[in-house]
């Protein structure tokens, strides 16, 4: 096996983990919850005890992963005809081909936005699973319902879907397990009384890792290669050169990953993500670039790659948006900034233009005063050539309005009230930028005359 092949294998495996197509190698900090959820499902399958539970936790803490992992394990256990020849290799994705002693119905509150759609989807999934299963038709197969974005189901009229699911889970009719996943901690309060009463009040919480080391472990797990990733068969006696090179590559790769985590700059980047949101996905996003860049020439992850993508993640969206904006737009923004600093939170175009004009007039006056002493001359039409060599001129109202509308289009300015009549020059607006952001834009702007920059820095 050449290095190229190995790298591409590693790339596929890691990016699958980063994109959450495949499950992580190990659960970190969720062992307890996992055991409980698995036990609950297992009881439904084994003893036919119906159950309902909720898994609550902020986004990105592993609720869905937990359930997926549990289902995978249950399929291992109860999937009766699990073929090793070709079943193993492509197991994760097409589970419904495999016959099992239970059925799973996945619903998502974002997709099934009303009960009708949800019912249709349940029917579709059950009939599909029913086809693949061979057993006698009058046997009772336990069904596991997974309700993603559970809180959205509670918004459906009368919550009849939830009512019925919970009711079945309470009666002896058919063994089912209802598992709701939600990031709303108050999801229970959304339930109507009659629905709430039928819910078993089991909830399991997933919280983000409280410890920085746990977080690092999760991140590391995503990047470290396992023998399975490189298709190294550990139990086979055949130890060829292929096998040896693959193993050596894995060892080296993992060693590099470990040193990567010891790198100061890298740690700083990760620490920042941890401080902000403890979001594992943010780290994954950080890794996509460096992993995609792996190649035959640079087969290992390097810390410098992460500095770059770390910097990319640190930019402020809006400041970035305004990077190449025109000088007129920038001037208008500065005018707005001054208005806001004077506690004028909503304004119309005329006010902004006045502010802008005041500045320009002053600049022109100053320019003429200066021009008598130096070469700074006032051009025709009130434009002044600043010392930076950029000409500054007072644009006409119509032109400025166009620029103003451009800012509105970019939704950096928004109407203060949803409905207002009258000409657009007089429509009241609010700005969606903070004063500090505007200052940043000015600082980062490539060819901003010093006079404008000074105006922006001036307070009041």
């Amino acid at each position, binding site marked *: 096996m050449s290095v190229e092949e190995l790298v591409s294998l590693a790339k596929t495996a890691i990016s699958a983990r980063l994109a959450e197509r495949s499950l992580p190698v190990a659960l970190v900090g969720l062992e307890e919850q996992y055991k409980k959820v698995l036990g609950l499902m297992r009881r439904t399958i084994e003893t036919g005890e119906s159950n309902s539970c909720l898994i609550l936790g902020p986004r990105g803490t592993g609720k869905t992963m937990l359930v997926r992992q549990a289902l995978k394990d249950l399929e291992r256990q109860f999937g009766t005809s699990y073929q090793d020849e070709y079943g193993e290799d492509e197991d994760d994705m097409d589970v419904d081909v495999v016959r099992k002693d239970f059925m799973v119905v996945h619903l998502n509150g974002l997709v099934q936005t009303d009960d009708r759609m949800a019912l249709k989807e349940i029917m579709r999934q059950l009939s599909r699973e029913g086809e693949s299963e061979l057993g006698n038709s009058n046997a009772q197969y336990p069904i596991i319902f997974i309700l993603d974005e559970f809180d959205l189901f509670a918004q459906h009229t009368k919550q009849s879907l939830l009512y019925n699911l919970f009711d079945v889970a309470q009666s002896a009719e058919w063994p089912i397990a209802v598992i709701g996943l939600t990031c709303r901690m*108050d999801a229970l309060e959304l339930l109507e009384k009659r629905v709430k009463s039928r819910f078993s009040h089991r909830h399991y919480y997933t919280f983000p890792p409280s410890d920085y080391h746990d977080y690092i472990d999760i991140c590391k797990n995503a990047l470290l290669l396992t023998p399975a990733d490189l298709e190294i068969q550990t139990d086979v006696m055949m130890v060829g050169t292929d096998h040896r090179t693959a193993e050596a590559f894995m060892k080296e790769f993992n060693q590099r990953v470990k040193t990567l985590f010891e790198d100061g700059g890298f740690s700083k980047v990760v620490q920042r993500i941890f401080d*902000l949101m403890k979001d594992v996905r943010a780290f994954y996003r950080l890794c996509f670039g460096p992993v995609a860049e792996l190649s035959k020439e640079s087969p290992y992850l390097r810390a410098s790659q992460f500095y770059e993508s770390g910097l990319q993640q640190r930019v402020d969206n*809006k400041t970035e948006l305004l990077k190449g904006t025109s000088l007129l737009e920038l001037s208008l923004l500065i005018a707005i900034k001054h208005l806001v600093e004077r506690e004028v939170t909503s304004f119309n175009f005329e006010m902004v233009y006045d502010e802008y004009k005041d500045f320009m007039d002053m600049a022109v006056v100053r320019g003429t005063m200066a021009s008598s002493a130096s070469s700074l001359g006032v051009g025709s039409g009130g434009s002044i050539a600043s010392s930076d060599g950029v000409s500054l001129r007072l644009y006409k109202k119509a032109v400025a309005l166009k620029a103003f509308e451009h800012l509105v289009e970019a939704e950096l300015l928004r109407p203060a009230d949803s409905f207002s009549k009258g000409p657009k020059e007089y429509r009241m607006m609010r700005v*969606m930028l903070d004063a500090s952001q505007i200052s940043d834009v000015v600082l980062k702007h490539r060819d901003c005359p010093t006079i404008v920059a000074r105006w922006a820095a001036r307070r009041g």
Partner: protein
Amino acid sequence: MVTTTQRVNNRLAKAKSQAQRDILYPPSDSDSDDDELEWVGEPLNKDTLIRRTSSKTTDSSDIPSRKATRGSGLSNIPYYKAFKKGDTIYSIGDIVLLRNEQYSQRFDHPYIAQILSLWETEDGDCEGDFRWFHQGDDIAKLRRYQRTGNFPESLECGEIVYTLDDDKNDINTVIAKGKVLNEMQWREKFGEAGTSLAIEERDMTFFCRVQEQHEAERSDDDVRDQAYSERASDLEQETSEEESDESTKNLPEKRQPKKAVVATPKKRPSRNVAKIPSRSKSLVIKTPTTQRSISATAPKTDFEHARNRLHVKAVPDSLPCREDEFLEIQEHLESAIEDGTGSCIYISGVPGTGKTATVLEVIRSLQAKAEEGIVESRLEGIQAFRREAIEFAARKVGAVSGDARRALDICRRAVEIVETNAQKAEDQRRLKAGRNPFEDLGPAPDPEQVTIRTVDQAIKEMFASPNVRLIQTASLHQKLFLVALTARLRRLGLAEVEFSEIAHAHLQMCRLHNIEPPMLSDLSAICASLGSSRCLLVESGKQDLHQRVRLSVSEEDVIMALKVDPLFRRLLDTLPSAPVT
């Protein structure tokens, strides 16, 4: 209760060791350890017996005992006059003590009964028909349910009442022979106050003074003859007997074993309490059972039993506190059925108060049953629960909502907790044994019970607010954001603040405490994430900087969660004091 047990155990030196074994092993498993059981003498119906090749049957295996063929018309059931268990011979007419499955100790609160007949089923189980004696607490129950009868006001120590209730049971549950005297003999023997003269004998001896129903003084022969003649007539004319035997008719489930647990005396005096007029007999509806793909394993441990029964789906043996409603519904339905007319009933109530359960119960059996305590009635005969634990759960829930479903779920969760604990303890024991196989492990620990503490733990688990935990596990900046929000809220004395204001306060705090300030877009992401877990209530994102934010959790929660961190304690100290309300 304990002293009784001890006394009995002391007296029955041999039985004591058995009783101990019973503590070691769950009682349901211990049947096989019991003394060998064998029939004494030839079958009584030798002549009419059709086929029976090998009648040697001592195994009371797990095969669920099929319904005795009393009504099947085949007389392939051998009836016997007596059987021998251990060293004792029990014959028809004898007074015996039966094990009460409810208690862990075999000799704790035994049932007292008289043997009416004995036979062997097709499956090889040894069964008998027993006529029960009521004891003190049974009488109390009967009285509560207004069962008519000439029961004495209260029973004296050792007094029992002869009843007309009899049903079938496994002989394996017989544990000892008892003795029933009349009042005179009793007083003669033990004196007025029941001196301590013969404590040992006293536990085995009872007296009975309710005369009309009292038949125990008859000679053994009489009873045996009568019993046998009854049996014989059974065999000859079951059909006519079935017609005439009204009490049997009214209580259809009395004859057939309800559960597959062998060797459980099914004496439930209260079951016979509320008799339903015979006209309702056609209303007995059996719910059809469907077959499952994986045959549900029969519950093995007490925990599993308890879990099963506590599942809301389980149909309780009784529905306490719904007697009036029950009777009303029953009357309505009965009259509607009698008249052949339609009827309309409107039942309303807070969820979980038992509307559905009551109606189902009426339909299912039209038979009133009642026990103390909703949960207790379900857990009857299961020793995994301590009494006070049940009471505790009931009181806790009763104080808030009175939702019975909730109470049952709490108990179910509590059983799970104990079960996992027991599992862990067992694993540790195993581990120990693995290390040194020759070390004597000693007796297994007492089976764990659900105590108040476990119930409390379950309640906490189910209802504890996750908010504090949520805030504690939040990231540094999420916490800072919450503090900034609290600070703004306090300063302004308003309920909600604009995002940009909080952001400013946040950034200022970062500068003050030398923390790397986040970008504004990071802050809005933080705000959104806190909003999605409903730590904050956030206006729609369209408003961006001007979206208004308010706390969704209580301010105390925030402060309590953050107090533990030194950095945040400092920050919290600088907060403006809460506005005076």
